[in-house]
């Protein structure tokens, strides 16, 4: 989860049926996002009414396509991040920086590692960048999981 508002749907058995994605539930940012909140709210209502039969519940194949499996570098990145978090919360922020950097190096696509590190420090001083600069480098490509509701259901 690297931005708000986003949401995950979890069914009665604790199984994820829609992984994290953009989840606007009103239209206050519609002029910026072009996203209609009603479409998402209707999808939630459909899931509540139809459960596993809802077309918004993703199949195993679709879930696999949206959730990337871990590899050894990402697992090491997670360990470096965990260590950095521990050090930071122990008041050792200077010591935490090299481990945040290592987590970012090992998993450069994770915006969790970037945003957390930048938010807890003087990003320009400690990381030579900042959030807005990095977002601009993406040229409009979202750094978070976009909303992907099925086309046919948008007309519901």
């Amino acid at each position: 989860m690297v931005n708000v508002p986003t949401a995950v749907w979890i069914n009665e058995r604790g199984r994820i049926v829609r992984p994290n994605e953009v989840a606007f539930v009103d239209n206050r940012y519609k002029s910026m996002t072009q996203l209609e909140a009603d479409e998402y709210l209707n999808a939630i209502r459909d899931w509540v009414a139809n459960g596993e039969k809802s077309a918004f519940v993703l199949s195993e194949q679709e879930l696999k396509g949206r959730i990337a499996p871990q590899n050894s570098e990402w697992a090491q990145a997670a360990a470096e991040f965990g260590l950095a978090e521990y050090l930071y919360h122990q008041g050792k922020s200077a010591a935490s920086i090299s481990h945040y950097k290592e987590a970012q190096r090992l998993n450069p696509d994770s915006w969790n590692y970037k945003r957390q590190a930048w938010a807890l420090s003087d990003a320009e001083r400690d990381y030579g960048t900042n959030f807005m600069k990095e977002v601009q480098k993406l040229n409009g490509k979202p750094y978070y999981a976009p909303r992907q509701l099925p086309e046919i259901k948008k007309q519901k």
Partner: protein
Amino acid sequence: MQKMRFLVYASLICLLTVINSFAAETVRRVVIYDNLVTEIGAPPASLISVDNSDLWVTLADLKRATKFVLKPQGVCRDQLCFPIPKKRRTAFLSQQGSVTWFNLSEFARLLRQPVAHDVETAVWYFGPRAEEQNGYLSSFTAPNFKLPDMSGKLHSLSEFRGKKVLLLTWASW
């Protein structure tokens, strides 16, 4: 002359860095294993490597920090046992007087478990293995996290079994 002075200073800095990290490991170490934070005692000097790549712990500390115990069949926790490779037994176990020491970092390398280490503060973080994480992913079961409610009371996801959960992140700006 200036070059010589620079080399002397550089050598001194390297030496001080090594001594400093060596000193940190000889005082106390912190092990974070399955998110459990445990402070453990220092090993004898003979078990501290110059590159700080090994974390030797007593069997009592091994149990306290990781819940693993040494058994004849291997290093075990609950029903799970990992045999120690016979040919490399000395890389894992060292008898120092009456105390048996276990190399927890070597054990992590055997399991392909990620380890992050901060030399200066002597903190060792053992993370979940990629295979372990992928076990969750293959079943798509959400990890059983805890979050506080508005009054600070913690709730775990498992409390909501039998109900649909919409986990929504928002900000209060």
